């Protein structure tokens, strides 16, 4: 009986499709928050300088895309406001309204053009980051670790040590695209101050985010040409589809973040450290 007591511690199919993609894109790009913890120096190499540089580059490309789109989206907002104030809804046959609708459509085409121009760079940098991380995860966590060592890494060196509650993973929203990548960069660039535990979670989170983002950028690029063609046709008729406005809304939320409400979830009740018991049977 050897027992130890130790303390523990729309209607148009094309625009509908692009809207759907934009929304999924927006959701994906508003994904992870990460885990922070202080502790030991990392012994697994998940973030070599190449990955850090790739993240910095992605943030900078996202920033350029935002800057490029900011002006055109501002213009779209103004034109839409003018259209509504002129009571053009339901008066589409009015020549003035038709002119406004055409202007709006042209600006919309500008936006699609800018996206079409910028997305390849974005895709390239996101892919680079994804591939670097993929290689690292495969090597460090996939080939060098067993499920048991992975668990111990995640728990940290003190297996029974409890850590401060971490923010929810993969749920961040309302943040600019460039800010997201910039935060990744900041997190990773200062990874020397974090332990393996948070690094493994952080690397996994970024990798999965990049994987989804990469796929969505590719799909969005495919849809942009289709949406451009449809809008060029709409231009001939001078119509504004509500879907068009939704696409613009989607792009805005991707780039500049939306007003998401943060739901505060109550934390766990505090454990009693004094009463902690460690069995000799524990691993």
């Amino acid at each position, binding site marked *: *009986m*050897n*027992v130890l*007591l130790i303390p*523990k511690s729309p209607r148009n199919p094309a625009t509908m499709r692009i809207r759907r993609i934009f929304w999924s894109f927006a959701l994906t790009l508003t994904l992870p928050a990460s*885990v922070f913890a202080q502790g030991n120096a990392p012994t697994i190499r998940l973030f070599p300088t190449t990955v850090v540089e790739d993240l910095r580059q992605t943030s900078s490309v996202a920033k350029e895309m935002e800057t490029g789109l900011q002006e055109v989206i501002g213009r779209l907002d103004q034109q839409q406001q003018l259209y509504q104030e002129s009571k053009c809804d339901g008066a589409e046959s009015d020549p003035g309204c038709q002119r406004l609708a055409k202007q709006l459509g042209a600006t919309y085409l500008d936006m699609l053009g800018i996206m079409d121009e910028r997305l390849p760079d974005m895709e390239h940098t996101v892919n680079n980051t994804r591939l670097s*991380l*993929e*290689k690292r*995860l*495969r090597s460090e*966590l*996939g*080939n*060098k*670790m*067993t*499920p*048991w060592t*992975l*668990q*111990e890494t*995640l*728990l940290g060196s003190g*297996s*029974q040590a*409890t*850590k401060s509650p*971490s923010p929810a*993973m*993969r749920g961040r929203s309302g943040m600019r695209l460039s800010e997201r990548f910039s935060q990744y960069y900041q997190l990773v660039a200062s990874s020397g101050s974090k332990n393996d535990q948070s690094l*493994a*979670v952080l*690397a*996994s*989170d970024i*990798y*999965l985010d990049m*994987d989804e983002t990469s796929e969505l950028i590719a799909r969005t690029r495919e849809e942009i040409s289709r949406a451009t063609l449809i809008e060029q046709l709409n231009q001939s008729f001078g119509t504004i589809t509500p879907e068009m406005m939704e696409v613009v809304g989607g792009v805005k939320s991707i780039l500049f973040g939306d007003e998401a409400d943060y739901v505060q979830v109550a934390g*766990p*009740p*505090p*454990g*009693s*450290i004094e*009463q*902690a*018991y460690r*069995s*000799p*049977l*524990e*691993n």
Partner: protein
Amino acid sequence: MKKSTLSGALQVLALILFALSLSSCASNPPLCSSPQTKNLDAAVGVVQRSLNDGCAAEFDRYYDDLLTLAEGDPKPENKRAFSEFLVWSTDQGLLSQRQAKEYYNRYFNVKFVSLEGDYNNCSHTCPRRDQVMRNMERELSDKERGLLHVSLDNAGYYRADELYQEVELVLEATCTACAAGR
């Protein structure tokens, strides 16, 4: 004469009764009933006696009975009672060390016994990731019982729950990376 006949008859009767009692012992298996007391320590004593009296095959049921009983009076000290009971079980040869550890850690440790394995994740864990996660989920529910409902170790249980989510995320990423490398 009468006296000696009477004593002889009594001797025969005693012999018959003894033989009957022996035969009934041989043919009737032990009852192996569950402990009736609500006190964990007393219940452990009852279970220990039953296990020693031929009810070893009922170990799983007894362990579950003790857990249910302890849920009725949850406190941090219950961990120790279970640990001591399992150590006693290994001392008695009812359980191997490995079995005792599994019984304890499955319910009272943050770490998941479902994650034991000697081979790397790409080759061993990823091909059966769904199964691993299902096993972990079942184990998490046992931990809820042991850590939360039996020993009031809320922090331990929430850390186990968090660990489950982290393993799920990290395995998803790692296994996607492993698959991409093939």
